[in-house]
């Protein structure tokens, strides 16, 4: 047991005394410098990004072009918005009609008809006659009915070439037959 312990102490002492031998101190030095420079490089990464993004500021013509483009863009924006505001202001001063104007009522219509009737009377005094509102409405409705019937007749004639030919012949024969309104 004792002999084993002594042997152990001897080996330990021997190991303690035998220092490692450096075969390349220069290599170690190089490795240390590389490690240090790597640390430094990661510290200036932001600056690299800034240099990458804004490298153009050091190129005169690029810098001037981009500044000019920005100024033009601002000017266009100001001009466009100015024109738009002016037009909006102008439009806000335009006449606003109430909802009543949009959908004329039946009463408005009769009034309108009477106004036209009065107007026609004013224009053509020799033809002035006095009729009631009801008669006026009836007259206009008759005109409208006649107009619809006339259109139907026209369509009927147009749809039947033989009838059309016959009517045209009759009209020619009667030498400019006139249709009274």
């Amino acid at each position: 047991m004792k002999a084993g312990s002594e042997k152990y102490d001897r080996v330990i002492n021997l190991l303690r005394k035998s220092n490692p031998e450096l075969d390349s101190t220069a290599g170690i030095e190089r490795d240390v410098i590389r490690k240090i420079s790597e640390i430094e490089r990661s510290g200036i990464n932001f600056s690299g990004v800034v240099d990458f993004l804004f490298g153009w500021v050091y190129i005169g013509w690029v810098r001037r072009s981009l500044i000019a483009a920005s100024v033009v863009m601002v000017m266009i924006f100001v001009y466009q918005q100015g024109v738009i505001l002016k037009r909006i202001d102008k439009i806000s001063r335009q006449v606003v009609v109430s909802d009543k104007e949009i959908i004329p009522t039946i009463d408005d219509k009769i009034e309108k008809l009477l106004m036209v009737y009065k107007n026609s009377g004013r224009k053509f005094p020799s033809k002035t006659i006095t009729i009631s509102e009801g008669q006026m409405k009836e007259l206009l409705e008759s005109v409208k009915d006649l107009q619809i019937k006339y259109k139907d007749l026209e369509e009927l004639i147009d749809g039947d070439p033989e009838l059309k030919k016959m009517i045209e012949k009759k009209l020619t024969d009667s030498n400019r037959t006139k249709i009274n309104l």
Partner: protein
Amino acid sequence: MKNKTVKVVIAFVIIMSVSCDEPQTIVTNYVHPDGSVTRKIEMRSSKNNFKQKTIQVPVDSTWSFRDSLEINQKGDTTWVKRAEKQFKSVDEINLAYKSDSSANKDVQREASFKKSFKWFNTEYRYSEKIDKKFLYGYPIKDFLNSEELVYFYSPESLRHEKENGPDSIKYKALSASVRAKTDNWTYKNLVSEWIGIFSRLTAGKHGDDFKEETLKSKENEILDIVKKNEEKFDSLWLNGYILKEIIGESNAVKYRVEADSAIKTAEANFLLDFKNYSVRIVMPGRLLGTNGFIDSSHILLWPVESDYFFTEPYEMWAESKAPNIWAWIVSGLFLAFVITGVVVRLIKKD
């Protein structure tokens, strides 16, 4: 002219323009940024009679319809028909106008849409145009001042309201002035139209005497003759007196057929069967400009009456803009980038 006098023609036009059986129609165009248009039509009538030939705009079976009935406080019944259709573009609307069989099929109508990209904004322009009917007429603006023009183009009920409102005296005077001037305009157009057509029909037949320019120089003279003989125009035209006064005795006999033809054609243009209606337009984005009226819900409104397009095309237009948000963001980022670059340079310089 035969048995139809100028005054009867004009009276007929006026009466027909407000004849009461056609529905009161409002056409609303909802314009979308991609150029498609949702067209809604509301027709109101005292009778349930909404045939295609009585409606002012082309509507067919491809539209979706909704009918309703309204009874007002007085007990009057109003039939309401609502129609709606989505048009992919204005070309589809124009196609419908081309195959028009509505009450107003005799007028040429056209819709247009324009989209302009202007970087920060996109501008839109939508218009509906009705072609003029007279070939040789005078623009109404030559006869009315700016205030009268606004009044002339106003919706009828607005004019009526003004004439019966607080400034009734002013507006009644304005109305009378507009009426007198438009009467004169109507007569002058009729004469001008007759001159134009007559000179075209007699082109090359009688030297330079019936050239449009030659007859135009006598226009006021002819107008005076027409006005002076207004009451007996019919018989005086028939016996050749008026024509003799205008082109001389021998020419009146020689060119009677052409003169009659010219007045018939002019008359046909006057006898335009047109039913009034209203057009409304809702534009995408913010409204920038229009020649219409604005209602309380900021929808644009135009009355459409035959007087408006007799001598000039009647264009109802609206312009609007919508901001391009992405362009604003891109521009802001670009501006920030350039400013930062300049600041970086200044810092580095120091």
